[in-house]
C-alpha cells in the first residue's frame, strides 16, 4: 500500500516526491512514496524548457509587481489568491533548488543572475544559460536519488485511476518493459503528467505530452478547467516545431517580417528601441505576439516555406560572443536542426503550440474535488496562468505547487489511514481485460497515426490562434466520430514486451478526450480573452465570462461545460497595456 503515489517524474512530480520524502525525514509516521512515470524521470519534458524561471529577488522588484504582471498577462482570469501564494513562494523554491546544486547562471560577484522575459516588468527570470529546464530537472532527479525510500516505477504507464465513492484508491498501470498490468493501491495520488501539446500537429511538446493526466482525472469524474486556453509560442522552427526560447528576444533579438520590418510596432506593443525594453515590442506577451503573426500573414508580409509561412528572428546584431554566453543552445539547435548560424543568418520562425493554461481543476494545495486526488504542474490548473501564461512562470509553478501538493497529500495519507476499497480489485480486473484486448491485434481498421493526424488537424483548424463558432461546432462532430473510429484501429503489435503501439493507442484515446474538452470550452466561451480569440466575438466580455470554464464528463462521455467565478483579491480587471508607459 502506497501512501503517496505520484504519477509523473517531471519537475512537478519530482518536487512533490522530495517534499514527501522530506516530510518523512522531519518526523512522524513513515510514508511510502512512489513515482510512476512512462519515461525515466530525467527524460520528462521539463528537460526541454530553455529560458528560465521567474522569482522575485532583485532589488527594486516587489512581489506585487510579479503578481500584477502575471494577472494582467493572464487577462484577469487568474485566481489572485493562488497567484499571491505562487509569487511569494517562487523565490524560496528557486533558492531551494540552488541549495540542491542547480547551476544557475551568476553575476560576477557570485549572486544568481536574472534576465528579462516576455510580459515581465522587471528582471526576475532566473536562468541556467538556455537550458534551465534541463538543469532544473536533472538537479531534482539527482537530488531525489538521495532519498532512497522513494520507490520508482520507471517506464510504467498509468491507464486508469481507481476511484470509488468519491475517493481515489490507486491506479492501474502497465509495466511497459514486460507488459505486466498491475493495480497499485494508494491512499493518495498526485497527477503530475504534464501538458497535452501533442493534440496539435505543430508543437514544441515532446512525444510524451499527450494529456494523460487530464484524461485520467476527467474520466474519473474530476472536472477540467479553462481548457480553451492553448498557448502559441511565437517562435518555433518551421519543420520540427523546436522552440527558440523567448530568452533570445530577451537578450535583444528582433522579430522582422519579409521586408525586414519590426512589425510588432503596428500592433500596439510599443515602439522599437535598439535594446530590449521590458513589457514592450518583442518582450510583449505570447498571445499578442502570435496574434500579430496571423495579421502579418493576412497582409501578405510573411515568407512562404514548404512548412508554412514564417517571419524571421534576427539575432545577428547580438554578436557571436553574446550568443555563445547567453543562448548557446539556440545556436546549437539552429545549427543541427535548421542548418543555419544565428550569428550570421536570420532564423525562420512561426507560432507553435506550446503550453496548456488549462488542466485538472485544483485548489491552492493541488487538491481536486475527488478525495485523495491531487494534481500539480502543467497538467493542473490552479489558475495562476489565467488566459495566457507568462514565460518563465511555469517552471516555478511546478516547484511551488508540486511541493504544496506533496505536503497536502502526505497530510491526507496520514489522516486517512483506512484500507483499500473492495471496488479496487474489480476495477483493476476490468481494466486489465480491456488492455489485454488491445494486445490481441487486428489486421483491419485504420492506423493509429492516421487518426491522430486527423485529430491534430481538426484541432489546428478549429482551436488555433483565431477561432470561430461554426468551425468549432463542426470540430465537435469530427471529434465524436474520431472517437468511434478509434475503437476499431489496426493493431500490428501483439507482444507483451515493450509494446509501444499499445501505449500509443491509449494516448490516442486520452488525446481525443482532451481535444473534445478544448473544443467544447472554446465553443462555450463567446468572447475573446488572452489566448482564446473568437473572430465572431472579438471583445472581452467581463460581465458574462470573467469566469473559469469548468468541464465535466457527462455519463454519455461527452463534455459538459459550466462556469466558475474567478477569485479577485486586489487587482480588479483592467486593460492590458504593453509598450505604453
Amino acid at each position: 500500500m502506497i501512501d503517496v503515489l505520484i504519477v509523473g517524474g517531471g519537475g512537478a512530480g519530482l518536487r512533490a516526491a522530495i517534499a514527501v520524502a522530506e516530510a518523512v525525514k522531519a518526523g512522524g509516521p513513515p510514508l511510502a512514496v512512489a513515482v510512476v512515470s512512462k519515461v525515466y524521470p530525467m527524460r520528462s519534458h521539463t528537460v526541454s524548457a530553455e529560458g528560465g524561471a521567474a522569482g522575485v529577488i532583485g532589488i527594486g522588484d516587489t512581489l506585487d509587481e510579479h503578481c500584477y504582471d502575471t494577472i494582467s498577462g493572464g487577462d484577469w482570469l487568474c485566481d489572485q489568491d493562488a497567484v499571491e501564494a505562487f509569487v511569494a513562494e517562487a523565490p524560496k523554491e528557486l533558492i531551494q533548488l540552488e541549495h540542491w546544486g542547480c547551476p544557475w547562471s551568476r553575476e560576477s560577484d557570485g549572486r544568481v543572475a536574472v534576465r528579462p522575459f516576455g510580459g515581465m516588468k522587471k528582471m526576475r527570470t532566473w536562468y541556467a544559460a538556455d537550458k534551465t529546464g534541463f538543469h532544473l530537472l536533472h538537479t531534482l532527479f539527482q537530488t531525489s536519488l538521495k532519498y532512497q525510500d522513494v520507490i520508482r516505477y520507471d517506464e510504467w504507464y498509468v491507464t486508469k485511476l481507481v476511484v470509488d465513492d468519491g475517493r481515489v484508491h490507486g491506479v492501474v498501470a502497465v509495466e511497459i518493459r514486460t507488459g505486466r498490468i498491475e493495480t497499485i493501491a494508494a491512499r493518495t495520488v498526485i497527477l503530475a503528467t504534464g501538458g497535452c501539446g501533442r493534440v496539435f500537429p505543430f508543437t514544441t511538446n515532446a512525444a510524451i505530452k499527450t494529456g494523460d493526466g487530464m484524461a485520467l482525472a476527467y474520466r474519473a469524474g474530476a472536472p477540467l478547467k479553462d481548457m480553451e486556453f492553448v498557448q502559441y509560442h511565437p517562435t518555433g522552427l518551421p519543420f520540427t516545431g523546436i522552440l527558440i526560447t523567448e530568452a533570445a528576444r530577451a537578450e535583444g533579438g528582433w522579430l522582422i517580417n519579409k521586408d525586414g520590418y519590426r512589425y510588432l510596432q503596428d500592433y500596439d506593443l510599443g515602439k522599437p528601441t535598439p535594446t530590449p525594453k521590458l513589457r514592450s515590442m518583442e518582450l510583449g506577451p505570447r498571445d499578442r505576439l502570435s496574434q500579430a503573426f496571423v495579421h502579418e500573414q493576412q497582409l501578405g508580409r510573411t515568407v512562404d516555406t514548404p512548412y508554412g509561412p514564417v517571419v524571421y528572428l534576427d539575432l545577428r546584431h547580438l554578436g557571436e560572443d553574446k550568443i555563445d554566453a547567453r543562448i548557446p543552445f539556440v545556436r546549437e539547435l539552429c545549427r543541427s536542426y535548421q542548418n543555419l548560424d544565428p550569428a550570421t543568418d536570420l532564423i525562420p520562425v512561426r507560432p507553435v503550440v506550446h503550453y496548456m493554461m488549462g488542466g485538472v481543476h485544483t485548489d491552492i494545495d493541488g487538491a481536486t474535488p475527488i478525495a485523495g486526488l491531487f494534481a500539480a504542474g502543467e497538467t493542473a490548473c490552479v489558475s495562476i496562468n489565467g488566459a495566457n501564461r507568462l514565460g518563465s512562470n511555469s517552471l516555478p509553478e511546478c516547484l511551488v505547487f508540486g511541493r504544496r501538493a506533496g505536503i497536502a497529500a502526505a497530510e491526507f495519507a496520514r489522516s486517512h489511514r483506512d484500507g483499500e476499497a473492495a471496488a479496487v480489485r474489480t476495477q483493476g480486473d476490468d481494466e486489465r481485460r480491456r488492455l489485454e484486448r488491445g494486445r490481441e491485434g487486428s489486421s483491419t481498421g485504420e492506423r493509429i497515426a492516421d487518426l491522430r493526424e486527423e485529430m491534430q488537424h481538426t484541432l489546428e483548424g478549429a482551436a488555433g490562434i483565431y477561432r470561430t463558432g461554426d468551425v468549432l461546432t463542426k470540430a465537435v462532430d469530427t471529434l465524436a466520430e474520431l472517437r468511434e473510429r478509434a475503437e476499431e484501429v489496426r493493431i500490428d503489435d501483439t507482444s507483451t514486451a515493450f509494446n509501444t503501439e499499445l501505449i500509443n493507442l491509449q494516448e490516442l484515446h486520452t488525446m481525443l478526450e482532451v481535444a473534445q474538452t478544448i473544443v467544447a470550452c472554446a465553443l462555450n466561451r463567446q468572447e475573446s480573452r488572452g489566448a482564446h480569440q473568437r473572430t465572431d466575438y472579438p471583445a472581452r466580455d467581463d460581465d458574462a465570462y470573467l469566469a473559469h470554464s469548468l468541464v465535466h464528463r457527462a455519463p454519455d462521455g461527452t463534455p459538459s461545460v459550466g462556469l466558475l467565478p474567478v477569485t479577485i483579491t486586489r487587482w480588479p480587471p483592467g486593460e492590458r497595456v504593453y509598450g505604453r508607459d
Partner: protein
Amino acid sequence: MTGAYRPPRDNLWFARTRHCAFFVLRELTSVFVAWTIVFLLMFVDAVRTGSLQEFGALAGRPWMIAINVLALAATVLHTITFLNLAPKATVVRLDGWRVPAWMIQGGNHSAWVVLSVLIAYFILRSP
C-alpha cells in the same frame, strides 16, 4: 517475459572503427617502449663490460635496424599521443581562466624537442 538479449562478446571490437584500431596501436607502442629499454640496457652493459664492438655489430644487423626503425616510429607515436593527452588529466586554471589544451600541448612538445637536442648534444659532443 523471456529475458533480454545479451549480445556475445565481440572479439573484433578493435577492428570495428578507425578510432579503436588507432587506440590499440597507441597502446601497443608500449611493447616497443619495453624493447627500447632492453636494447638500451644491452648497450649500457656493453659500455661497462667493454664489449662495444660486438654490440655495434649486433646493432648493425639489418633485422636489428629494422626493429629499431619500428621502435623509433612507435616511440615517436607514443610521444605525440602521450603529450597531447596530458592536458586531460592536468587542467590548469589561472585565476579562473582555463589554460587551453593547445598551450599545454605546445609546451610539452617544446620540452620534448629541447630535451632531445640536449641529450644528443651530450652524447655526441667530443670530449
